[in-house]
């Protein structure tokens, strides 16, 4: 269950994002991830883990959406792109070349965050803001 550790990393980044922007009032609606198909991440498991991990936190109610990025290699023999598959040992079907360049599929990226920021609500609900 490395998705648990990936979720921990994600939450650290989201907490840093909030602290860096002083966005104590930010209410995150959706976190958009790009996950390549040549990673060891199971998107469904990551969403499940995220939903469990944010319960009771400032991210409670937010959604994690994952866009899967296809695994594409480039054949350095003819410069064409191809879908590497295990049945062909990830070699290029055009020239039977080994997998050298990976064009996409290794992404593990927080692409963007959709959020609402309400300064009035923040003053009401955030003791940190009130002290200032």
């Amino acid at each position, binding site marked *: *269950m*490395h998705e648990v*550790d*990936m979720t*921990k*990393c*994600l939450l*650290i*980044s989201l907490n840093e*994002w909030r602290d860096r*922007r002083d966005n104590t009032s930010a*209410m995150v*609606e959706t976190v958009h*991830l790009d*996950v390549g198909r*040549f*990673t*060891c*991440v199971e998107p469904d498991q990551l969403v499940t883990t995220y939903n469990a991990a944010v319960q*009771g936190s*400032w991210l*409670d*109610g*937010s959604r994690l959406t994952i866009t899967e990025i296809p695994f594409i290699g480039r054949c350095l023999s003819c410069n064409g792109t191809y879908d590497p598959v*295990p049945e062909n*040992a*990830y*070699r290029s079907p055009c020239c039977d070349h*080994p*997998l*050298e360049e990976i064009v996409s599929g290794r992404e*593990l*990226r*927080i*692409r*963007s*965050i*959709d*959020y*609402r*920021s*309400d*300064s*009035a*609500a923040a003053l009401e*609900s*955030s*003791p940190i803001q009130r002290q200032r």
Partner: protein
Amino acid sequence: MTPQLPLSHLQSSASAETDTPLPAMHMPLEDNLSLNLLAANTHQADHNNEQFQRWDLICFNLMSSPGAGKTLLLERSLPSLARELNMAVLEGDMTTQLDADRLEAVGIPVVPITTGRACHLDAAMVSGGLNLLQQRLDPAALDLLLVENVGNLVCPAEFDVGEHHKVALLSVTEGDDKPLKYPLMFRNADVVLITKIDLLPHLPVDLDAIRRNILSINPDATVIEVSALTGEGLEAWHRWVRHALVQRKSPIPALATA
């Protein structure tokens, strides 16, 4: 921390306050981050790596499925390398004290990393191991630090711990299709040791197919066939270790900090 209002509450209260116009801040915002999902681990791994640079040592991350022979490889390799190198092991694959005892018996300090039931080591666990290591010895006196990862071909491949090189082991008993089933591990490895080759006469396994599959996924990999039991191939592995050390010890300064 004060619990934040649920989103539905914000929306309903916002629409109820029709007499006061909504400030622009109510509009949904989008922040384009394009941030590495594993940034937190990467930061810690970079920090570990900086520490390795300060200590002027080189670190290998040893990975394989359970039972591929990581511990026996260390047990047979390290006494031979110990004549020329100062080494220590961070042991992350220890369900019992047994593995550590086997290495301590050959005079190599072994620091256990407590993983609980983790399926891989991450950079923070290794950082904890480095703190324990410092309590026991001066890491600056080391040439080589070997991190023995948890036996698993899946997730250790995705979590850097700050190592200079990834070393993957694959035993011939696992079958020649394993590089294709766990491609990420073999793609990311700098060197792949095909272990237990003494068993080849007894197995319907194609050594050339193993080698070909590894090199199809990772044409840059160095592939070395070894038997820790008979010692066959160990010298080739030791040459690779020495070569990695020589390369690291004479870096181009401008590149070393890059």
